[in-house]
């Protein structure tokens, strides 16, 4: 199986004719994702790559093609609006790749999405991939292998690094989800771990966190109380100085809160095997499986 996306995913690409949108839409199509529609206001009626119909609005795209998932490659200035539009069109899953959406906009986007029963993944994320089935986002398909490890991560290339370790050591993945590097995101560790725990084809999970906030600590509590499958975890930023934003808008230690040490302790107390470095993921998983 997998979580959130699989071969039944019918994808509408918002921003399909832009530089990033067109590049990644092609990659997703090449991977085997069912890209059924694209949206760029003003380019309705065109066909992308002679195959995918382009519409002016998401509502029209959904009406005509029965798309059930959206991916957003729209620049930051218009991305919040793109999420509102996707939720308004009744889509069940919305994946926002865009980095740079103002946090205050997200305080308004999140309740809107939630009320309409949609799941938002991101923003500021690489998306997700169920190897061999579907890819929604920019995670390179060629580093993934189908298998039974569920991966959930706040990072981009660090996620690829860990997927690479898994794939080259016989540990394929059921689904890899990038939840994103922003402080306000639509889907968190607990959401993904819950879904992985319920997925018959996921045997164990890897969670990749970083400094800032309390998402990992809350996830650790949740794992302790409710998760049956083995979990291995990594926290990036042990050497990060307090008070500085380390790239990701959400990667900042405020006062003494959100440190890597605090998170690693919380994970360990919950029975999660804690990696000290990316290469530890394979031996720790093998110990637990």
């Amino acid at each position: 199986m997998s979580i959130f996306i699989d071969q039944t995913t019918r994808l509408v690409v918002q921003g399909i004719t832009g530089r990033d949108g067109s590049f990644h839409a092609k990659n997703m199509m090449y991977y085997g994702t069912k890209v059924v529609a694209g949206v760029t206001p003003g380019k309705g009626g065109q066909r992308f790559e002679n195959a995918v119909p382009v519409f002016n609005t998401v509502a029209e795209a959904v009406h005509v093609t029965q798309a059930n998932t959206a991916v957003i490659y729209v620049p930051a200035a218009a991305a919040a609006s793109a999420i509102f539009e996707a939720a308004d069109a009744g889509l069940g899953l919305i994946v926002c790749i865009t980095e740079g959406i103002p946090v205050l906009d997200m305080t308004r986007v999140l309740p809107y999405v939630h009320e309409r029963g949609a799941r938002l993944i991101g923003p500021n994320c690489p998306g997700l991939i169920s190897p061999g089935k579907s890819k929604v986002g920019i995670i390179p398909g060629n580093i993934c292998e189908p298998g039974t490890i569920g991966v959930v991560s706040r990072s981009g290339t660090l996620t690829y690094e860990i997927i690479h370790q898994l794939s080259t050591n016989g540990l394929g993945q059921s689904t890899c989800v990038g939840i994103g590097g922003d402080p306000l995101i639509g889907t968190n560790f607990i959401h993904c771990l819950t879904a992985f725990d319920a997925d018959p084809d996921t045997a164990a999970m890897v969670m990749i966190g970083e400094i800032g906030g309390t998402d990992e600590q809350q996830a650790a509590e949740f794992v302790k109380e409710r998760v049956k499958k083995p979990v291995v975890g990594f926290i990036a930023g042990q050497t990060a100085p307090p008070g500085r934003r380390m790239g990701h808008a959400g990667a900042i230690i405020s006062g003494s809160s959100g440190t890597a040490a605090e998170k690693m302790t919380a994970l360990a107390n919950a029975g999660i095997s804690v990696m000290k470095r990316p290469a530890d993921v394979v031996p720790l998983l093998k110990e637990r499986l």
Partner: protein
Amino acid sequence: MNLHEYQARDILRRHGIPVPPGEVASTPAEARAIAERFGGKVVVKAQVHAGGRGKAGGVKLAKTAAEAETHAKAILGMTIKSLTVQKVLIAPAAEIATESYVGIIVDRASQRPVLMVSPAGGIDIEEVAAKTPDKIHQLAIDPRYGLLPHQALALGFTLYSDVKQVRAAADIMQKLYTAVYAVGASLAEINPLVTTPDGTVQALDAKIAIDDNELERRPEIAALRDVSAEAPAEVAAREAGLTFIKLEGNVGCCVNGAGLAMATMDLVKYYGGEPANFLDIGGSSNPQKVVAALRIITGDPNVKSILFNIFGGITRGDDVANGIVQATQAFPLKVPIVIRLTGTNEKEGIGILERAGFAALSDMDEAVKQAVAKAKGKAA
């Protein structure tokens, strides 16, 4: 992006919050002139992006304009938490009866703006939270409705018993909330919110931090940036489209992706080295960006070796390799460089680098070990 106290006070004043007057001086003579204009006692306050200014001697009361000049002379040029004071704020000294705290921050856990008030003002709010958390009253605000009058009033009653002051505080809270959304703040604090002996409620000090993601759409706020308050290397990095934070070590790092960059720094330490910096070069293999990164990293005299860690997804390994070769031709290096390249076109990229005489490998642990050894002047 941080704002200085005087900038935060201006913003709050513009939103109708009672903020006493104040003017900025860059020289002792200017400070004296401002103090003379105000007449009477003034306070001279260092303008730096750091807390604990008072404890560091950066806030001084002056009884006369001459004294204001003397204090300004001592405070300007002073270093507080490794930041140099370049401006001071001169404000009429207020008579203070009580001090409270009012602040709004976007809270990640509730995903809402949270208003915090405390009758324990004039102290670091983190200290209050740690020692006497019952003195902090919090409210998560629903951004669809804003701060409702009855909510602000209830919080006002936790600060004061005189209903005139309660209403004044509630009004200030609502205006603070409006200001947060108007300027794109991630944090806005009034500490202390004071009452004067005659009963007036005023904001005596203000701190506002702006969400960096707001700057593109708020050029008038972006223009408030004080570049002189930032490290030149970090300014250069931002202008080159990189993210750079200087640390204390000697292994310079250049990585694509913030999470991987943090993990790389951590791995340097794991293998007994000390990272010299955090640098996220982003997703491009553009040689100009690589040159900019090398210039910034080698601008730190502590750097004894440089480690590149690139995981190519969309970015292709051969493009990255060519970028590094071109960059080092334009900007020759005096310290050893170790390049870890993996992902798309990894073999081609490593081939290009090896032929150009670089140590290039695909294993992250090996690359870090080599970079650490080279920084110590040894072979790995």
